[in-house]
């Protein structure tokens, strides 16, 4: 691997080598830029470090302390926060639906949330690129949003998907089986296909599930990118002329370093990104770097992720097959017949025993002999997840707490509360999933209230007064500082955010390539849309797989 000297200013320093960071690193390296990625967690040796075991996989998650409050506090850690090269894509379930065209204009269409500064059309070519780079498996015709097909064929069904398909079919609800997921249904190059062992969110040892660790990082390194793992960035430095010029970070031994760079891209996800910018406050930016709007940390979102579980007389064996393997988006869009705006998806989830026991502790109030008994029926349960659009709210936010981490940096304090539209959507969605499970033959249905997927807190928008970054993920305040990760989402739709995060990164990379040296030297902000660069795809990805366009 290439090794840059710290006093040598690289072109781009990327903070966080996860879903977005790795895609940026790979494309910028391929385009010939000098790039360094700093990642707080380790560089995984997947065969040695990962295990086919629930309790043994905690290292994949961000387990450093954070404080979580508000009237409906969010569980963090394994629920939604990754750590290590590949970031959250290492432990995601890998559902990869696109956002719908309507998601980019909820304010115009429904009078809620806000419009994105970009449209579905802007992102569509990047959805197509990334789906082929992953590559994604799914139906030949995905019927919702902007209909499209997937490069790899759908996966065989597991027991949980089977209940979803049976229930939906009984009720006349359209449903799709076997994807869309970023899991190989056929082998490709050196990556084998899925073995259906069900440990997706413990890290895919097989290499069938995409993570940027296996899809983009090797190509990034081959093209001269450097990744420094176990390197926790503490602060971004502001230099003369309102331009950033370096970061301070701690290495694996706790030693402090400064890496100089001509431009910086923060890819730390919805909590660590605002935390780093707050911790980088300096004269001129007293309330946080790039935060002249005062909106940094605000409009944090999670999706409603309520799990509805049904007990069946026959065996389901929910631990087999990827947790993500069937879904419906039939309730995704605003329906004037309902008393709330926007909607939700219904997806399979396949909790392994520990996760299921915790769900039953909450959903049934099970403990003691009751917990033992319900767990003995583990193989009779099927679990479906609501994935519902919670609207952005100003008072849902990240701030700095009093407490500090091992490096002496203040940790994040998260505040989250549901609002009226959210409550109505969730009640309706849970009821609908209950109907589906009963139609499929469930004899008992219970619900665990929970959340999935963090996004927001450094939203993109049209103007410096209403947002932190523009449509190309460039901060309004500082011309050579970018934020590219889930935190830039102004609204979230009811689609899992991973694909959109990677697609946004690919688009931002094209923009940076088109701008070239201007990013490093000029304060002029171009809004010109970049041409789509297919030659930046990792090898054997673009256009590979089952031919289908």
């Amino acid at each position, binding site marked *: 691997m290439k090794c840059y000297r710290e006093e040598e200013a690289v072109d781009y320093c990327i903070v966080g080598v996860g879903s977005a960071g790795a895609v940026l690193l790979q494309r910028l390296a391929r385009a010939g830029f000098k790039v360094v990625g700093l990642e707080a967690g380790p560089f995984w040796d997947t*065969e*040695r470090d990962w*295990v*086919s*075991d629930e*309790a*043994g996989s*905690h290292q994949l998650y961000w*387990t*450093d*302390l*954070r*404080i*979580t*409050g508000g009237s409906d*506090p969010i569980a*963090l*850690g*394994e629920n939604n926060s990754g750590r290590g090269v590949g970031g959250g894509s290492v432990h995601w379930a890998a559902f990869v639906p696109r956002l719908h065209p309507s998601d980019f204009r909820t304010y115009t269409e429904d009078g809620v949330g806000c419009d994105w500064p970009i449209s579905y059309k802007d992102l569509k070519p990047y959805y197509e690129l990334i789906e082929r780079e992953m590559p994604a498996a799914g139906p030949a015709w995905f019927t919702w949003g902007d209909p499209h097909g997937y490069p790899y064929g759908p996966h065989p069904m597991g*027991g949980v998907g089977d209940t979803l398909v049976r229930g939906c079919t009984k009720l006349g609800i359209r449903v799709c089986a076997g994807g869309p997921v970023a899991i190989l249904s056929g082998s490709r190059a050196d990556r084998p296909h*899925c*073995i*259906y*062992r*069900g*440990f997706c969110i413990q890290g895919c040892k*097989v290499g069938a599930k995409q993570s940027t660790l296996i899809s983009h990082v090797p190509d990034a390194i081959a093209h001269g990118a450097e990744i420094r793992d176990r390197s926790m960035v503490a602060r971004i430095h502001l230099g003369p002329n309102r331009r950033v010029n370096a970061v301070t970070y701690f290495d694996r031994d706790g030693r402090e370093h400064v890496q100089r760079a001509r431009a910086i891209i923060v890819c730390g996800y919805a909590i660590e990104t605002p935390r780093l910018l707050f911790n980088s406050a300096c004269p001129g930016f007293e309330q946080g770097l790039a935060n002249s709007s005062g909106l940094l940390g605000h409009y944090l979102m999670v999706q409603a992720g309520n799990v509805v579980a049904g007990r069946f007389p*026959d*065996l*389901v*064996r929910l*631990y*087999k*097959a990827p947790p993500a393997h069937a879904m419906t988006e039939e309730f995704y869009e605003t329906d004037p017949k309902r008393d709330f705006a926007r909607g939700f998806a219904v997806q399979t989830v396949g909790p392994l*025993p*520990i996760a*299921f*026991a*915790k769900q039953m*502790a909450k*959903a049934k*109030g*099970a*403990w*003691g*002999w*009751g*917990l*033992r*008994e319900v*767990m*003995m029926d*583990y*193989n009779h349960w099927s679990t479906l997840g609501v994935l519902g659009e919670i609207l952005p709210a100003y008072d849902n936010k990240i701030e700095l707490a009093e407490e500090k981490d091992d490096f002496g940096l203040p940790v994040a304090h*998260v505040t989250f509360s549901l609002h009226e539209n959210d409550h109505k959507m969730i009640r309706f969605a*849970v009821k609908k999933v*209950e109907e589906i499970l009963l139609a499929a033959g469930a004899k008992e249905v*219970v*619900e665990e*209230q929970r959340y999935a997927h963090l996004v927001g807190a450094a939203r993109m928008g049209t103007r410096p007064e209403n947002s932190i970054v523009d449509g190309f993920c460039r901060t309004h305040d500082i011309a050579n500082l970018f934020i590219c990760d889930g935190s830039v989402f102004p609204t979230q739709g009811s689609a899992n955010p991973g694909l959109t995060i990677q697609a946004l990164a690919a688009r931002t990379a094209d923009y940076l390539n088109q701008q070239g040296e201007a990013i490093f030297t000029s304060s002029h902000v171009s809004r010109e849309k970049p041409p789509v660069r297919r030659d930046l795809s990792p090898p054997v990805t673009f256009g590979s797989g089952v031919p289908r366009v």
Partner: protein
Amino acid sequence: MKQIGYYPGYSTLAQKDFWDDATRAVVLKRLEPPAPLRFFGPGEAERLEAVVNQILPQDDRPAERRIAIVPELDKRLYEHRGPGYRYADMPPDGEAYRMGLRAIEEIAQHLFGAEFLYLRNRERDQVLFTLHDGEPPAAKAIFARMSVKHFWLMLVNDVAEVYYAHPWAWDEIGFGGPAYPRGYMRLERGEPEPWEKPEQRYEWAAPEDSLSGECRPLPGSHL
């Protein structure tokens, strides 16, 4: 004593030769004798053991097949390993455990005028149900500083995490266990793999002197 659960003769460990090395090392470590406690003192450990025995009772398992839970809780707290977050209405995890144990003592004294350790099975369950229901009748000072709900769920979650991480618990519930690199080939209709066992159900009932066999919804549940 007959194997507990509906899959008699099923053993995930019997498949360990088919697991990858890293996974096998992690799982087999759980069969080793537990390490000495470092976080909890002897008195605390005895009381925590009594609480844990109610939350995850194992009286029906042969003595040599009971899964040690307290040592794992102790290890997590000693090593300051957390889930990655703390609720704003909670003290740090270790402190919460110590406060929680004191609170359970106060509730036992309030309800029965005796230490938790000297209560009968049903009385112990009654004490714990007051936490489950979010209405502890005593220990007001403690619960002014700590959420009952979040303490209770942390306790149940932590205990469940240790128990259901153990291969003996996997045998009990018919979970397939580690499956790399072999994977599964029979995905639908709950069919067993060749090395799994078909289900053989029998009438199951919690011991008569306990209360926890009947699940009661947590406050605020919807369905």
